């Protein structure tokens, strides 16, 4: 009895403390549904093609959805696991959607103009030029590799066109000690970390210099020395893997986090939900970076989920979250750096939803004009292109010239072509690698393969 009473008092006390902390306490008595929508409110549009208004690039790191309550009626409290819950005689359902969609953090507008007068200090000239040249390199590599597939030289390819800012700017905000668990549309992180064009080409050709020994389709890169776990085709499986790896970093007191990338489609998989929940409960330093590019092959996000995108799912799991303009390299850079700091210092997961668009077809096996208007693609390819937007900002700062641009482009083009030629000439991996690196459930035959007397042939030994 005494302990019940003291628990009740503790709850009471907590409620008071929380109500004092809030700048504008809500008064449920005057407006019982002040943070709720009337049930007749119109739903939030499911696409994000509108303009995002964000007139400041200041970042708030306050957690969303803290306990909201009035500073009265404190005796109407249910002491319940997870904290005290206010009791109310007003029956109201939480709306399925917020009155407004979660706003999106941006630094540069579509013309590369900073959206506020405050100067953006975080990215200086050297870093900016490095980021830009990596974005250009990624675009050129993608374009030429795509062509190589069209010519039948490699079996498959998939580009990151339109998502260069997410790729490069997020990579730039991390350190090499941060461990990457990628989906497949993030080769820019590897590029940033020093994976050479030759190494990319070797993987796509599956030659003997491919670290994956020719075992996976093109674009399934991986590099141990660059802390980049090998891509798996299976959507979303890497997300809980990143959580377990983050637990290891935490136990080892490393000043690093894991970072896992995935698409909007991937967020429908159970692995995504399980991973967010595990990360929240185990309090591990992991960044969940969702590239919401509007499409999962031919499925638009309106058929993928009915929530306000992905960002709103974070708080439901108790995860601090932010939505960022994925085509704004500076916004991505800034959000990821701050998220990384918080993740490591506070040992907590952070969810970042980057709004972007898959400008390319899903892959070389897809023709996206069959399911989406060409004008939509063109709009994002031109008006919203993250690379030229960033270039405009560089131009404004007087950091980059047309001459440097054309030199960079022709040099990269030459290197990519050379890498392809060299990779194409290189031999295939040894056939012995058919059997290595997997525990031999049925050991390979002692005889050479192909001489017709393999172990699978029934042998009469008795």
């Amino acid at each position, binding site marked *: 009895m005494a302990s019940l009473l003291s628990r009740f008092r503790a709850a009471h006390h907590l409620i008071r403390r929380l109500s004092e902390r809030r700048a504008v306490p809500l008064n449920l008595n005057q407006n019982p549904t002040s943070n709720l929508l009337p049930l007749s409110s119109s739903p939030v549009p499911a696409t994000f093609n509108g303009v995002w208004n964000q007139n400041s690039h200041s970042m708030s790191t306050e957690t969303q959805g803290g306990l909201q309550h009035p500073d009265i009626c404190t005796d109407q409290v249910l002491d319940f696991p997870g904290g005290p819950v206010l009791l109310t005689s007003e029956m109201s359902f939480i709306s399925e959607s917020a009155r407004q969609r979660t706003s999106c953090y941006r630094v540069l507008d579509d013309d590369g103009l900073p959206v506020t007068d405050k100067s953006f200090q975080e990215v200086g000239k050297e870093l900016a030029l490095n980021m830009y040249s990596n974005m250009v390199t990624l675009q050129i590599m993608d374009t030429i590799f795509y062509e190589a597939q069209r010519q039948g030289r490699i079996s498959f390819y998939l580009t990151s066109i339109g998502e260069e800012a997410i790729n490069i700017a997020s990579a730039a905000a991390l350190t090499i000690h941060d461990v990457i668990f990628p989906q497949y549309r993030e080769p820019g992180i590897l590029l940033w970390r020093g994976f050479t064009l030759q190494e990319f080409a070797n993987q796509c050709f599956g030659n003997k210099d491919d670290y994956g020994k020719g075992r996976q389709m093109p674009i399934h890169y991986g590099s141990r020395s660059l802390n980049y776990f090998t891509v798996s085709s299976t959507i979303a499986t890497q997300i809980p893997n990143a959580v377990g790896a983050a637990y*290891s970093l935490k136990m080892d007191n490393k000043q690093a986090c894991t970072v896992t990338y995935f698409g909007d489609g991937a967020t429908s998989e159970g692995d995504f939900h399980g991973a967010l929940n595990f990360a929240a409960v185990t309090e591990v330093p992991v960044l969940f970076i969702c590239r919401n590019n509007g499409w999962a092959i031919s499925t638009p996000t309106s058929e993928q989920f009915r929530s306000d995108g992905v960002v709103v799912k974070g708080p439901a799991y108790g995860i601090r979250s932010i939505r960022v303009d994925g085509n704004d390299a500076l916004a991505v850079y800034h959000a990821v750096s701050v998220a990384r700091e918080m993740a490591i210092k506070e040992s907590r997961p952070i969810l970042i939803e980057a709004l972007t668009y898959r400008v390319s077809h899903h892959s070389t096996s897809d023709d996206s004009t069959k399911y989406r208007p060409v004008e939509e693609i063109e709009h994002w390819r031109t008006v919203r292109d993250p690379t030229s937007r960033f270039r405009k900002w560089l131009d404004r700062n007087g950091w980059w010239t047309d001459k440097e641009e054309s030199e960079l482009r022709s040099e990269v083009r030459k290197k990519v072509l050379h890498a392809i030629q060299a990779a194409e000439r290189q031999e295939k991996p040894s056939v012995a690698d058919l059997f290595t690196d997997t525990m031999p459930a049925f050991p390979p035959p002692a005889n050479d393969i192909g001489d017709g007397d393999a172990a699978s042939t029934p042998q009469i030994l008795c």
Partner: protein
Amino acid sequence: MRSITMVQKLGKVLTNTRRFSSANSISSKPINLFSAINQALDLALDTDPRSYIFGEDVRFGGVFRCTMGLADKYGKHRVFNTPLCEQGIVGFGIGLAAMGNRAIAEIQFADYIFPAFDQIVNEAAKFRYRSGNQFNCGGLTVRAPYGAVGHGGHYHSQSPEAFFCHVPGLKVVIPRGPKQAKGLLLSCIRDPNPIVFFEPKWLYRLAVEEVPEDDYMFPLSQAEVIREGSDITLVGWGAQLQVMEQACVDAAQEGISCELIDLRTLVPWDKETVEASVRKTGRLLVSHEAPITGGFGAEISASIVERCFLRLEAPIARVCGLDTPFPLVFEPFYMPTKNKILDAIKATVNY
């Protein structure tokens, strides 16, 4: 990331149970199966600071008491509860193992391993292969109680081992009793490959035997002849061996000499030991609780026919679970019972 290497020096590798017992100088105590598992887990945590145990309800000791006392002894960061999500448990375990840790994941019942099937089959099994050996999750061991328990119905009784035997890159291990469980589990935890370890839950409390108190391991992929005989070879694993042993005793009373083999590791399995036995007896019977169709008995049968066709004196007999969901009130009809085995022994010998 650290790489996992075999820690042979930690525990003696025992090659044969019998030889070990006869040369017994180490103290041992009669304990049941869950206590033997508990001892193995305790040793695993004690001998490697990079080992972790996690799963549903493991912190208070687990619903079968296998992790009892471990969180108190090693701390809640090394022995911890997870949310109720099997794909999360294994997905997390793979990531943890991939960073150079021994990740010991518990799935509360083998019947509930299927949400994690994708992580086990597509990720764990192929992790090393698809990265060209740049990465591996060899430190992962997934433990799960399997099999009949007398009243479990179809969601607390299944034997799903065959699903995992079909996946190159995984090992599948099943112990038959407390002493085996301790030695085999330690081998699994320290083996550099991902392993699924199924524990016969019927025996958690029932099976009691002398178990050495020290750190020892039994080799994987080595079957053990637990009863020698000359007329017919019987192969099984896990809880089924007790039933088979009784059938062997009854057969002996009718003048039939049975050789009984515990396969112990299902993949990669010890074909040589089975083959040598069948060459001697000329007859083979395989028995398991899982449904007969597509069960691992079919694999053993096919392999032995390939190897010993001319030596076989009768068709290979399979005494297995029925091709039905695991029943509740009719469990005794479903099970590959002693009498069914005995009948099959006689039919095979008199073929």
